[in-house]
């Protein structure tokens, strides 16, 4: 066996203070050539700050950065790029109407005479793409390609600029299961070609699968640096949150009660164009969690929008507590007992520039408890918000702070508090743990199970199979706007479910 590969990046005693908080407290980190080094920590642990320092966005208050053995002062992203450091951000920075090649060459355009040399750009993009197995079409427009592809364009962009140290900031947060698998392969291809990678994440499974080394950060300090092969998920989770965490929530069996939601023959779209939802039948009972499995973009959004009154059904019926509520207004459906935890909490779940208290009454502000008639009693709103913030452990300096200033996990807690406390009969939760860290995920899961125990009917839509298996009483698979079949989570496995999610009906074998 050869000796350890050379150290390509070394951070020595990096400290960064913000008023009232030490974001990084004398952090040491060594990245070796050709390795994938995972940086693990909860939201707010200081991972992003550290990487922003490495990428030149912040200056450290103390400490040194050594690149390839030489001390470097990185005073801006331009300097970082010239040192061969590239960053793939969580939120992509791409020009939507431009092609892939145009985005990649932006800022470093090859020129022939006075005109841009597209041919060279295309060739170079294709060549890099082939080298690392990225399979990107240089001529495709960004707005036409999937999120996974856009991410690859970001990767290509860094490679095009000659990066050999790549930082990935939560790269899988926006990807589907398949895309994650492909990304993992791309990461391996990159290291095989001699690139070194820092992977910021809080997803343990990914770390176990792909990384060589893992550094755990908690509250701005390095807790430990371990070789991935010599550790396991439980140990990492414990180091990350500082206490032991149970992964599998305890699912209590409960005899389901009355039917709460019954969807019959629900269809969106007419025969001429492709139907977005095609003859959906679905029943959810009191005290039952029905998990809707499927790859993103197979009708989940449309189904939720119809159930919440955002979109109109073309045909079919939606019955809530035995009442026909098809195509009612959102407000009527909310009054009838539907609550909704939307997938995109920034876009749909919160008014980010409203205070926490204003957000907590979004949906219930018309209640007489918050002011008589046309008046809004902000004192009453704040009292109510304070109560919920306490009960649901939403960490915020006060309820008058803007929702924007909260961390993702606390924003989600605020939404869950709001929706559950409205006393719904049916709760629709889409991707309720997206982008959350382990601690927040287990909180959300506990609350969903508690709501179930209280007899609420819950429709859980998720792209994480583990989540569906752990929480659901019944699994339903959606593909291309159609229900492919049902399964009992105790009797099925990921493979079978995956086949249905790919469009194979459950009864296909039986019927030949």
């Amino acid at each position, binding site marked *: 066996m050869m000796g350890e590969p050379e150290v390509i990046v070394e951070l020595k005693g990096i400290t960064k203070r913000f008023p009232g908080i030490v974001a990084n407290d004398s952090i040491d980190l060594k990245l070796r050539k050709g390795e994938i080094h995972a940086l693990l920590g909860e939201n707010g642990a200081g991972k992003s700050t550290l990487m922003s320092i490495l990428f030149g966005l912040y200056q450290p208050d103390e400490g040194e950065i050594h690149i390839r053995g030489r001390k470097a002062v990185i005073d801006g992203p331009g300097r970082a790029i010239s040192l061969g450091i590239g960053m793939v951000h969580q939120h992509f920075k791409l020009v939507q109407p431009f092609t892939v090649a145009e985005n990649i060459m932006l800022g470093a355009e090859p020129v022939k005479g006075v005109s841009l040399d597209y041919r060279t750009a295309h060739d170079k993009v294709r060549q890099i793409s082939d080298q690392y197995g990225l399979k990107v079409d240089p001529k495709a427009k960004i707005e036409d390609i999937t999120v996974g592809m856009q991410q690859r364009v970001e990767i290509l962009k860094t490679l095009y600029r000659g990066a050999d140290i790549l930082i990935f900031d939560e790269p899988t947060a926006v990807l589907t299961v398949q895309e994650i698998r492909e990304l993992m392969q791309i990461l391996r291809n990159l290291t095989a070609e001699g690139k070194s990678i820092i992977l910021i994440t809080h997803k343990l499974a990914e770390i176990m699968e792909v990384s060589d080394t893992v550094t755990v950060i908690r509250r701005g300090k390095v807790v430990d640096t371990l070789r991935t092969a010599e550790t396991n998920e439980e140990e990492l989770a414990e180091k990350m949150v500082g206490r032991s965490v149970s992964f599998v929530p305890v699912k209590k069996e409960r005899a389901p009660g009355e039917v709460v939601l019954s969807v019959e023959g629900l269809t969106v779209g007419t025969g001429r164009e492709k139907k977005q939802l095609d003859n959906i039948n679905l029943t959810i009972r009191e005290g039952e969690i029905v998990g809707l499995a499927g790859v993103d973009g197979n009708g989940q959004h449309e189904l939720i929008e119809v159930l919440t009154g955002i979109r109109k059904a073309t045909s079919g019926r939606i019955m809530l507590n035995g009442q026909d509520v098809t195509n009612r207004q959102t407000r009527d459906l909310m009054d009838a007992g539907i609550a909704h935890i939307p997938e995109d909490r920034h*876009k749909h779940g919160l008014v*980010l520039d409203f205070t926490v208290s204003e957000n907590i009454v979004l949906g219930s502000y018309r209640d007489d408890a918050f002011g008589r008639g046309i008046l809004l009693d*902000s004192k009453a709103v704040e009292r109510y918000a304070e109560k919920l913030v306490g009960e649901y452990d939403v960490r915020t300096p006060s309820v008058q702070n803007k929702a924007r200033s909260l961390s993702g996990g606390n924003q989600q807690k605020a939404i869950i508090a709001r929706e559950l406390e409205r006393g719904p009969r049916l709760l629709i939760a889409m991707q309720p743990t997206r982008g959350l860290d382990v601690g927040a995920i287990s909180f959300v899961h506990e609350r969903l199970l508690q709501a179930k125990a209280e007899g609420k009917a819950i429709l859980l839509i998720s792209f994480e199979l583990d989540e569906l298996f752990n929480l659901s009483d019944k699994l339903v698979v959606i593909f291309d706007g159609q229900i492919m079949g049902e399964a009992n989570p105790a009797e099925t496995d990921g493979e079978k479910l995956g086949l249905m999610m790919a469009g194979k009906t459950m009864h296909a074998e039986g019927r030949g």
Partner: protein
Amino acid sequence: MDKWRNIFNPSSVFVPLGAIVLGLLSGAVIMLLGGYNPVDAYQALFRKVFGSPYDIGETIRTITPLLFTGLAVGFTYRAGLFNIGADGQYIMGMTGAAIVGIKLQLPWFIHAPLAVLVGAIFGGLWAALVGYLKASRGVNEVISSIMLNWIALYLSNYLLRALLLEPGQQRSYFIHESASVSIGWLSRALENARMDWGIFIGLIGAIVFYFLLWRTKQGYELRAVGLNPDAARYAGINIKSSIVKSMFIGGVFAGLGGVFEVLGVFHYQVLSAASSGYGFDGIAVALLGGNHPVGIVFASILFGTLTYGSAGMNFSADVPTEIVRIVIGAVIFFVASHGIIQGIVKPFMASRRKLDKKGAA
């Protein structure tokens, strides 16, 4: 939209204050370049404003329409709409008030309030039309309201000619005394400055602005729609009706501005070849005032003072009145590009900035 929001919501009090100082300094520099003495000029400006009771009264008269159009722009902005059509709404308000004031004969306690009300509703409906077009057809409110400004101007001229014109004059008949909202005793107290109820209704308007948006459920809805229409829709708020309602209320503010100009100041309406410009000044007032009623009140006082005082600057320091337009322009420029001011006052705001960074990290 986000871009507008960034420009339109300067986060602190420093920005508008800094902008005013820098604006006045810019004006001074330009005066120096032109060979004028800026100290004399600004002294003349303030002497003109505070020189006599008459001037104080007339300054207040200048402030009034700016206050109304500022409220009109600010209110709709809070609901997520950029109301560039306050000018047209202002003209419709004038026209509505003039028609009632001239054509009807009623006892004063009905006539004046009715004329005010009709003018306000004219302005409101004119704006609601913009809201309706946006809500039902998705027409961008900036485009439709700017077009409706011209339509309002010529429609108003047409109505004047058809119904109200005094023969041989370029203006309407005078309104009946019973429709006047001038305050005789106050005018007499201020050396016959043209005083009317407008400024008081304007200040009440600012209170209503605040009360509606922050103390009622309807206002909560409007603000939610303004900040995040998607989330508002998911919370069961009817976006389309919110758009129409907020435009209507904004239009009522602008319309009232026109109403008091006719019923309180001139007592007639003139045929106009071009718009008054009050609607566009209203955008500047709302911008400087941070779309908050208190800010709008102060901003309208500032702009009204500068505008009225510029005459004195011209008269006693021989500085052209256009200099004041440059000062106002510079103030707006510095508010809009508040990064410049934050750069200058950085040492004072260092702690704030660090906090912001922490939030971003």
